[in-house]
């Protein structure tokens, strides 16, 4: 083994949740390793600027991120940045993690584990969504925050919830041109969410400013519409948009909008694969974004020594994630017989208040059933393996009625992304076609490695003579 590390607490993911969990556990006097695949802590929402940015104006997100990064740097937390986690194992009471650092295998042993793996985006498949120039909405925010680059010269920002408006505002702040905003939500949807938003007057004011700016600048906002087709062969040249009914089924005449880039996203889905590999049971909760690890408010799971927090435990937003991270830090400290000073009921109250706001945003972002009807038989669901909705429909009709069965029979989910970008749409289609609820169609079994990793990086430098070859099988 090239490198073996040992710690009390391993925290997976250095976003608002994982960062605060790590800081808390370290303040309790525990040795903490914070594992993250990005170069800087902050996660997706509090993402740091990339190496190519020497100076730039700050935003609320960049300030929150800088603060977290400064706290981690000043703490005793061992931040393993630019490190890929590929495997989680249980050996007796201890956890053993397979990491890859600079192409070299490293094993990290820990007494307790905090999984703060965050979220990924649900992008509603529509005809043409694989065309170059189509970015995920959350993906676009990474481009805007890290690289401070806009997606194109004329961008359609489409999708649900607050992220469309944040993205449009950021494109404008960085000098880009927003061609149109297309959102299935209506003004009435937002009015209904307003009471839950009153707990965050800062965000409310910011949102109001975005809306006023868009109105003044004449950016058209297509409320109650969906982007239903991407136009362009090898690059985006525009999109079709449809008005929707209250179930978000296309209703009414289509219109075309020219653009060279599209940002498309329909809410977030918890990344649960790491928790699944750690043996955590999962349950389906649409209010939290779908399948979530079974855990309480403080992130405690039924698995001894395993805690989960942040969006990976259910989509509640960055503010709630930070508080839940602190709570999970306290939980893991207690589990190891230590105590984090200054974490108490006040934290839990703040967490619940922030979570209420986050859940209101999750509810706004969650696609309604009719949106799936944007998919036609030729629409690609599994981008990696090119599996279409029509092929999936046939496989289901032939009896493949679980995510594992469609994965085996069709290869959807067997490609390099591991099903991350098709699973939600695939299990939804299985559920609808077989008359079951989404909660009755679990995702496929999680398998290592959590990201594709070079074989040589896993094998390391084991010499042939040192291979532990057991005695041959019976003749």
């Amino acid at each position, binding site marked *: 083994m090239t490198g073996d590390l040992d710690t009390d607490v391993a925290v997976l993911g250095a976003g608002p949740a994982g960062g605060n969990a790590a800081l808390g556990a370290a303040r309790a006097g525990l040795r903490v390793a914070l594992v993250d695949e990005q170069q800087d802590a902050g996660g997706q929402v509090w993402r740091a600027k990339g190496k190519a940015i020497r100076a730039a104006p700050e935003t609320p997100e960049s300030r929150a991120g800088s603060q977290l990064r400064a706290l981690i740097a000043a703490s005793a937390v061992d931040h393993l940045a630019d490190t890929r986690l590929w495997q989680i194992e249980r050996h007796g009471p201890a956890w053993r993690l397979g990491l890859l650092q600079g192409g070299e295998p490293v094993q990290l042993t820990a007494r307790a584990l905090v999984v703060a793996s965050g979220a990924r985006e649900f992008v509603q498949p529509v005809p043409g969504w694989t065309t170059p120039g189509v970015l995920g909405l959350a993906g676009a925010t990474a481009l805007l925050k890290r690289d401070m680059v806009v997606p194109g010269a004329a961008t359609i920002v489409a999708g649900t919830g607050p992220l469309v408006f944040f993205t449009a505002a950021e494109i404008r702040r960085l000098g880009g041109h927003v061609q149109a905003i297309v959102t299935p939500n209506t003004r009435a949807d937002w009015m209904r969410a307003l009471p839950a938003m009153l707990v965050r007057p800062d965000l409310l004011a910011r949102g109001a400013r975005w809306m006023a700016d868009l109105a003044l600048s004449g950016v058209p906002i297509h409320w109650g519409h969906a982007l239903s087709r991407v136009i362009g062969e090898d690059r985006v040249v525009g999109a079709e948009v449809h008005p929707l009914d209250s179930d978000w089924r296309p209703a009414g005449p289509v219109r075309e909008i020219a653009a060279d880039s599209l940002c498309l996203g329909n809410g977030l889905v918890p990344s649960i694969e790491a928790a699944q590999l750690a043996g955590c049971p999962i349950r389906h909760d649409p209010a939290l974004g779908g399948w979530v690890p079974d855990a309480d408010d403080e992130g405690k799971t039924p698995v001894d020594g395993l805690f989960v927090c942040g969006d990976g435990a259910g989509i509640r937003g960055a503010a709630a994630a930070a508080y839940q991270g602190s709570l999970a830090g306290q939980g893991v400290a207690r589990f190891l017989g230590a105590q984090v000073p200054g974490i108490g009921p006040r934290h839990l109250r703040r967490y619940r208040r922030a979570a209420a706001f986050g859940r209101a945003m999750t509810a706004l972002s969650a696609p309604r059933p009719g949106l799936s009807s944007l998919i036609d038989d030729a629409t690609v669901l599994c981008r990696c393996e090119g599996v279409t909705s029509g092929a999936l429909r046939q496989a289901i009709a032939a009896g493949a*009625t679980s995510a594992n069965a469609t994965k085996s*029979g069709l290869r959807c989910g*067997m490609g390099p992304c591991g099903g991350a970008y098709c699973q939600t749409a695939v299990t939804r289609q299985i559920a609808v076609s077989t008359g079951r609820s989404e909660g009755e169609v679990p995702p496929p079994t999680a*398998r290592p490695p959590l990201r594709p990793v070079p074989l*040589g990086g896993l094998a*390391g430098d084991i010499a042939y003579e040192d*291979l532990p070859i057991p005695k041959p099988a019976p003749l």
Partner: protein
Amino acid sequence: MSAPFDIAIVGGGIMGCATALRLADGGMTAVILDQGDLGQGASGVNAGTLSLQIKRVALMPYALRGHREWQAMGDAVGFHRTGGYTLAFTADEAALLQERQALKAAAGAPISFVSPNELFTHEPHLARKVAAASFCAEDGYANASLTGAYYRARLSAAGVPYRERQEVRDISRTQGTYDLVTPGGTIRARRILLAAGAWLRPLASHLGVDLPVRARVNTVSVTERQPPLLGSVIGHATGLLTMKQKPNGTLLIGGGWQGAGQPQDGRGQVRMDTLRPNLALAQHVVPALAKARILRSWTGFEANVPDFYPLAGSLPGLEDAFVLGCVRGGYTIGPYIGKLMGDLILGRELELPLFDPGRDFERTDP
């Protein structure tokens, strides 16, 4: 109450499904029950190797017939007869290979030894460290992922009902009929066949039978699509490596390295301390694999009994109750031994003998 089935088969893997098809052909009404999906146990997650070179000598007649079954199943199961090489890298391994392949050849497998020159002409990406290599033109592979889809189609065409996600929680017998309790209700059948692989032991215990079934936890990995690196199935003298490149360019790497876990606790787990040497061995054999990305590693439970011969016959002490499983090389032999099992249940004459589940497992001969 509806009429009982002629037979209930517990376990929808290759052996259970192949038996069901034979029985349906013989006029029996059968039903298959599986705790998960069809063909998602060992039948669906093994590496798909069809190699006579790694079969046990006493099972060679079954394996030869198994190969013919797979060939007949053809494209629907992703069958490819590519030929296969088994490699030795040290003098000891070469001696082991010589000794074993001679016995297997005597048992009917068309195995010969090839020169390094011939080997590298056919497989130019192999490391130039090979000490000896045997070849068998019969060898190849099928795509285990397709097992479930294949048998769903065959069973539907044959009119055999199958019930997925129906774990059998209890079995009892009243007035000559077996009652199988499942979440979807009680299934009644005049006969019963247990074909649940690594889950046979808890299943048989419902009938008061203790089968000494244990499970191996075999690890398999797959790479991203690669340019052409291998044309045939590659094995290692010790049996600890199987490797093949699929038509889509992905490479499948197996060899029976052991993961962790128990069948009753769900799926098994990959272990770094066995996966890493498994991959290191693959890289030793094909150095270009160092840069290939691994997309997935997984495990499958392979059932066996202490003498490593099949359980195939009547359950001891019971009437109209049968068991089929624990076949070493079960993927290869499964479609054939399923037919034999069907013939036994139908009261037909058997082409080859089966393996008495009531035998003394401490002896080395079945």
